[in-house]
């Protein structure tokens, strides 16, 4: 594997994202004789699930923070020895263009010369997901971090956001995060989960078909039990307290629609809060190309793919969380299946089985953890909904009730919510809910990340994109 850009090379396949899906795809594609560019914004391989300490940290036992570390170590080793794969690290792709070939536009840094393009015959989108945030009073205080962010900072930098960390929100990532934070020495006064987990009970046959998933969950549960961590179900953090840093949270019981039940509030002291409500597929590049999407059971937009992982756009494949959040094993299987389709080879039976089982499991999880319709009950009028532009819920509500806005797009134009640096990734789902419009519509982001103007200007025919 070469670690550099080769602007002259015309690749058979460009893979965007070097997480489980992208790694498995690049490995399988090279095995089938394809010339592959594996492009990732990050410096290393692994994506979210296999995020690991920087090599200079000299971790002798990185597997302590991972399930399935061996799978990653083997993939990494095979890719390092694969002459057909170029790893283009530190390349953030901000647009994909279809001509005779695909042309990817990427940025590697702030200077005009940090622009790069990659040319390929076929394109696989394996860009993963980002966390869904539902705002509550105090969520902008320092020490409040995302559950996946706490996990990522721990896995890569071996650091904790505090000593006493409440873990809250909804979804399986909470258990994974709490389990590693506790193992790394943090006190976890509580895991606060909004659902009752009852949804799982209805899907027993699906659970039985996914023993590996069960084992992983059981391992987290055992570790949490060992550390004396309590799981509070049907509850939510309805306020974070503090002035310059979080000092505690108020937790309340929720009814079945996620409405806080008055009189059930309890205060828990902490110096950090790790919070998240599931994941949202990161699909901007494909949405800008007009790819069809589906709405998942938990109200997010994912790419629609066929049995061969092909999107509705010719020459564009997708694998992993971009097709709906389902975890690392599913991502690995879909990566392999996509590579076979690109190479025109029949799909391997093992991966077909894994995909079928894990997709069913994912649908079950999504339905179980879908936010209840009344969560907005804990959002006070002066809670900032948009962190970047500091737009309070009051402004969003007024845009709806007084100015007649009926969807997120109109609210955005009237209030600037979602117009800041993160391009609505943090507030998008919340704004959609508060505006009463449809949820699960894909957001439009013509540029998938901020691009220095000097680099934008170099792209032919893009004057409409540069301000």
């Amino acid at each position, binding site marked *: 594997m070469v670690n550099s850009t080769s602007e002259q090379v015309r690749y058979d396949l460009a893979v965007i994202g070097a997480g489980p899906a992208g790694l498995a795809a690049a490995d399988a594609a090279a095995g089938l004789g394809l010339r592959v560019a594996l492009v990732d914004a990050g410096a290393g391989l692994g994506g979210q699930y296999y995020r690991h*300490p920087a090599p200079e940290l000299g971790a002798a*036992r990185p597997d302590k923070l991972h399930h399935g570390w061996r799978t990653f170590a083997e993939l990494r080793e095979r890719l390092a020895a694969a002459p057909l794969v170029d790893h283009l690290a530190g390349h953030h792709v901000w647009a994909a263009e279809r001509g005779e070939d695909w042309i990817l536009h990427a940025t590697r840094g702030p200077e005009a010369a940090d622009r790069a393009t990659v040319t390929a015959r076929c394109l696989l989108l394996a860009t993963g997901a980002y966390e869904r945030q539902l705002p509550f009073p105090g969520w*902008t205080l320092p020490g409040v971090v995302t559950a996946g962010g706490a996990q990522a900072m721990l896995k890569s930098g071996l650091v904790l956001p505090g000593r006493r960390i409440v873990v809250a929100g909804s979804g399986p990532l909470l258990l994974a995060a709490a389990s590693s934070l506790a193992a790394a020495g943090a006190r976890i006064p509580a895991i606060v989960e909004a659902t009752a987990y009852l949804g799982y009970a209805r899907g027993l046959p699906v659970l039985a078909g996914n023993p590996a998933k069960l084992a992983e969950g059981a391992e987290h549960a055992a570790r949490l039990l060992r550390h004396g961590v309590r799981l509070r179900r049907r509850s939510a953090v309805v306020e974070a307290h503090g002035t310059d840093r979080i000092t505690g949270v108020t937790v309340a019981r929720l009814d079945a629609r996620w409405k806080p039940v008055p009189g059930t509030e309890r205060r828990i002291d902490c110096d950090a809060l790790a919070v998240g409500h599931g994941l949202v597929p990161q699909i901007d590049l494909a949405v800008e190309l007009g790819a069809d999407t589906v709405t998942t059971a938990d109200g997010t937009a994912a790419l629609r793919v066929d049995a061969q992982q092909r999107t509705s756009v010719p020459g564009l494949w997708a694998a992993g969380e971009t097709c709906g959040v389902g975890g690392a094993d599913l991502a690995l299987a879909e990566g392999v299946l996509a590579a076979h389709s690109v190479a025109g080879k029949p799909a391997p039976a093992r991966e077909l089985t894994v995909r079928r089982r894990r997709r069913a499991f994912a649908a079950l999880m999504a339905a179980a953890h879908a936010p209840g319709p009344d969560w907005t009950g804990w959002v006070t009028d002066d809670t900032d909904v948009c962190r970047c532009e500091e737009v309070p819920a009051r402004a969003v509500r007024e845009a709806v009730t007084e100015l007649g806005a009926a969807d997120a797009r109109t609210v955005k134009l009237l209030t600037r919510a979602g117009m800041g640096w993160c391009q609505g990734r943090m507030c998008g789902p919340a704004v959609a809910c508060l505006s009463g419009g449809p949820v699960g519509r894909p957001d439009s982001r013509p540029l998938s990340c901020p691009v220095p103007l000097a680099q934008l200007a170099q792209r032919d025919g893009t004057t409409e994109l540069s301000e």
Partner: protein
Amino acid sequence: MDPLELVGAEPGPARTILFDGRPVSALPGQTLAAALWADGVVAWRTTRVGGRPRGAFCGIGQCFDCLATVNGRPNQRLCLLTAEHGDAVTTQEGHGHGELDV
């Protein structure tokens, strides 16, 4: 138990960065945000409208809450930048929309 002990880390010698002029040590390979967390610092910017403190939120480059000025260049995401010896991180007030930087 701490995170380094958990994974049996034996990092090389620490680097020193400057946070608003104060020396803070950073382990090799850690991001600037990680080095500040390890030092107990969780805020390094104030917001444009409310003047409220902010630090790292998403930890993976997506929220842009962790912006600060690094070696004179404003609006840098500290969760993405590896700490290098002598890096000067300065608290940032507000954020300039003038220059769209990565």
